[in-house]
């Protein structure tokens, strides 16, 4: 069974095998000639769309994918051009990017950091993607952003709302168009004060992960600044589907507002439980009980159905806005897919156009040129009003919407009504704000 004979021949053979194994790495010392990662040399350029196609955020992901495909069509001069006609920068001509036809590859993040990085890597290494766009979770965004920084490609984040994405985890090669938890808090607080008064006692249920914490921190800070009192903050496991055991204690806690720092399926379930417990019919401390969902999305609203009526929240964008950019985008999206786009779709669409435009203005696909073109870029006409891509942390600053679940929806998509458009100045903050401090952008990395 075992053979312990050491022969001269055996030693020689083993030595030769081991030696050739050790010698292998020497072939890597040759360096390549390209100026940056995946420099497009042919007549086309490949973008990578990395969105969740399975898992809890699959619906958001598929909506993002539709919007990204639409953006590619518009860049290539197909369709009606959408926001290319309303965009304040006129660098894009509808002939691709820098004359190269735009192609794209897709990947499935599965809303898992590991899987997202694997699919982003395969797009970069196998398909030669020059940038990665999309995603629907902050954890994934931070993970993929780190990867893109190391690999030397540009990352245009999709739906990511945690402060960390452009806070302590910010990276020079990463850009976020979506708003963040701090902005939600800053936009919501005045509306909450106006609707519910300044003497409220809030109870927080928070999804127990990075995004939940930063959102809770932001909302607690901005409501306490109003004079609200925070009764309790309870973390719920992300995988929970039944929140009854978390809702029951709320009734006896002396709170009169419930803040649900949940997203996606979590939010649908916790809100449904809260309604089943009749929270909204209760009177606590002599006031009507209220529920707040700081981060809203159309798809969540559709999932929660009747239950969201009257519940307040914030959004990055809504298809019911009346500016030219929104109208153009909603029109071409609606004509192609037969439904209005969600706010995650809009952010991904805008990100693709912003990237393409930055490349045109920089005159190169080199990530460092693109970073320079995007930093402190002021633009308008993509649906969010005048917007500023701040250079210090690569965060977009624009108006934030406060919305309410529609009491009398007229059709299936009319689930939310816009309560207030919070002006940009009110949600701006210092890059060194304590909720964002701790990270550094570093230098842009062109790879190669």
């Amino acid at each position, binding site marked *: 069974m075992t053979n312990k004979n050491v022969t001269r021949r055996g030693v020689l053979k083993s030595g030769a095998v081991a030696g050739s194994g050790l010698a*292998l*790495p020497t072939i890597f010392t040759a360096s*390549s000639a390209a100026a940056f990662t995946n420099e497009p040399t042919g007549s086309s350029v490949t973008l990578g769309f990395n969105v969740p196609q399975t898992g809890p955020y699959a619906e958001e992901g598929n909506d993002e994918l539709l919007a990204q495909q639409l953006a590619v069509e518009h860049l290539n001069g197909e369709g009606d051009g959408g926001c290319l006609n309303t965009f304040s920068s006129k660098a894009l001509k509808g002939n691709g990017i820098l004359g190269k036809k735009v192609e794209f590859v897709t990947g499935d993040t599965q809303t898992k*950091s590991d899987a997202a*990085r694997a*699919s982003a890597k395969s797009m970069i290494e196998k398909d030669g993607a020059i940038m990665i766009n999309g995603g629907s979770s902050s*954890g994934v965004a931070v993970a993929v952003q780190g990867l893109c920084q190391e690999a030397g490609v540009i990352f245009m984040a999709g739906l990511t709302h945690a402060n960390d994405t452009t806070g302590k985890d910010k990276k020079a090669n990463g850009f976020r168009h979506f708003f963040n938890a701090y902005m939600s808090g800053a936009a919501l607080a005045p509306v909450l004060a106006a609707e519910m008064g300044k003497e409220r006692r809030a109870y927080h249920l928070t999804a127990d*992960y990075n995004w939940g914490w930063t959102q809770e921190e932001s909302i607690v800070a901005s409501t306490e600044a109003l004079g609200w009192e925070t009764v309790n903050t309870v*973390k719920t496991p992300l995988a929970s589907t039944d929140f009854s055991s978390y809702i029951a204690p709320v009734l006896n806690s002396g709170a009169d507002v419930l803040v649900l720092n949940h997203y996606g399926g979590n939010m649908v379930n916790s809100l449904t439980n809260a309604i089943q417990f009749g929270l909204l019919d209760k009177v606590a401390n002599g006031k009507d009980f209220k529920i707040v969902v700081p981060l809203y999305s159309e798809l969540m609203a559709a999932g929660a159905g009747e239950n969201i009526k009257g519940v307040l929240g914030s959004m990055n964008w809504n298809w019911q806005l009346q500016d030219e950019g929104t109208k153009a985008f909603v029109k071409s999206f609606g004509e192609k897919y037969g439904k209005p786009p969600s706010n995650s779709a809009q952010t991904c669409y805008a990100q693709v156009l912003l990237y393409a435009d930055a490349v045109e203005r920089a005159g190169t696909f080199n990530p460092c040129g693109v970073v320079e073109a995007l930093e402190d870029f002021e633009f308008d006409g993509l649906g969010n009003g005048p917007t500023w891509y701040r250079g210090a942390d690569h965060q977009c600053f624009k108006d934030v919407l406060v919305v309410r679940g529609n009491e009398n929806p007229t059709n299936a998509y009319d689930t939310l009504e816009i309560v207030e458009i919070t002006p940009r100045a009110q949600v701006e903050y210092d890059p060194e704000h304590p909720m964002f401090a701790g990270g550094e952008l570093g230098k842009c990395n062109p790879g190669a």
Partner: protein
Amino acid sequence: MLGLNKKDTSLLIIVALLTLLAPFILNPFPEGSAMAQFNAGYPDLMQRFVIFGIFAIGFNILFGLTGYLSFGHAAFLGVGSYSAVWMFKLLSYNVIPAIALSVVVAGLFSLLIGFVSLRRSGIYFSILTLAFAQMSFALAYSVLSNPKFNLTNGETGLQVYADDPQILQGANSPDLPHLFGLPMRATYTMDVGAWSFDFNAGYYLCAVIMMVVFYLAIRIFRSPFGMMLRAVKSNQQRMNYTGLNSKPYTLAAFVISGMYAGLAGGLMAAMDPLAGAERMQWTASGEVVLMTILGGTGTLIGPVLGAGFIKYFENIFSKINDNVLHSWFAFLPDGLEDAVVFLIHPFIGKGWHLTLGILFMLVVIYLPGGLVEGGQRLLKRFKRKKKDTDDAPSGKTEPAE
């Protein structure tokens, strides 16, 4: 050679050739051709092939030899990844200490879990390991990632930040995982005509390590210790009645396979310095069970084949979208094209699980011995065609593989 018999030596050589020549074997189609979609020879996927190969080889030492079905092996993989990233954060980006620590920590962790879980066998053992793995996942996902004591960085995954101590990091050493200055990301691309082959440093590190641990696995399989483990599988009760305490053997097998898993986890972190909690989830544990069964339980090369098979599906099939399908079937008339795409659509892209599930069922029903059995049957058929006499049983008892 190396203390192996002839058959095992040739198996080892075959594995060595397959891994060393993988960049050629996995990229059979010219770049830019329609079939290039099926090329798998890019660094990330090749690394995954061998890393999950290591994981499955280790799992097979436990499951294939002793028959103890652990549903919690992903926990060791995750622990290995976390320790490796912590080494990057504290010491330097050199992968050697990271990989070493990941093996050690996973070994200790599996000793602890194995000590408790191995008090039971059969389904109870499986459930215990599953419970431990889910506990580890919950710990990594939320409990150990609170701002006060942040060991795992929760959902975002543990990463290296610029302000980490990295006390041994030299001024000139690369700012990403490297082996004494050779970055794991370094790739040499060889263009031959229309073909392009990637030779990646990280892949070859993993490949060399896999050959070493594959060799170790052969030695374990052929050793008296391996025989003892097989005895546990065939009838543990009888072994106990003869007065032999089988627990040290099973615990040793458990720890060894845990260390294999830790090594795989450490390598994963070395290739890509991020450790996510979902590596520890029960689906990840289930995946390695599937790999082993798909490839062939108790065989030496089966788990490696199974790992490659599943990772190929996960990465290649999931990327075929409707656009790609339309371009393939563009030669058909419009209505027919749409119909064909509609029919295939559920099985590709996000439906890759469905395709894999069907294949898994077919394999389990028609090839209970996994892919290895399929290969053996094919081989037999070819041999029979050549000469009919070679098929007689040899008369003496032989090990199952």
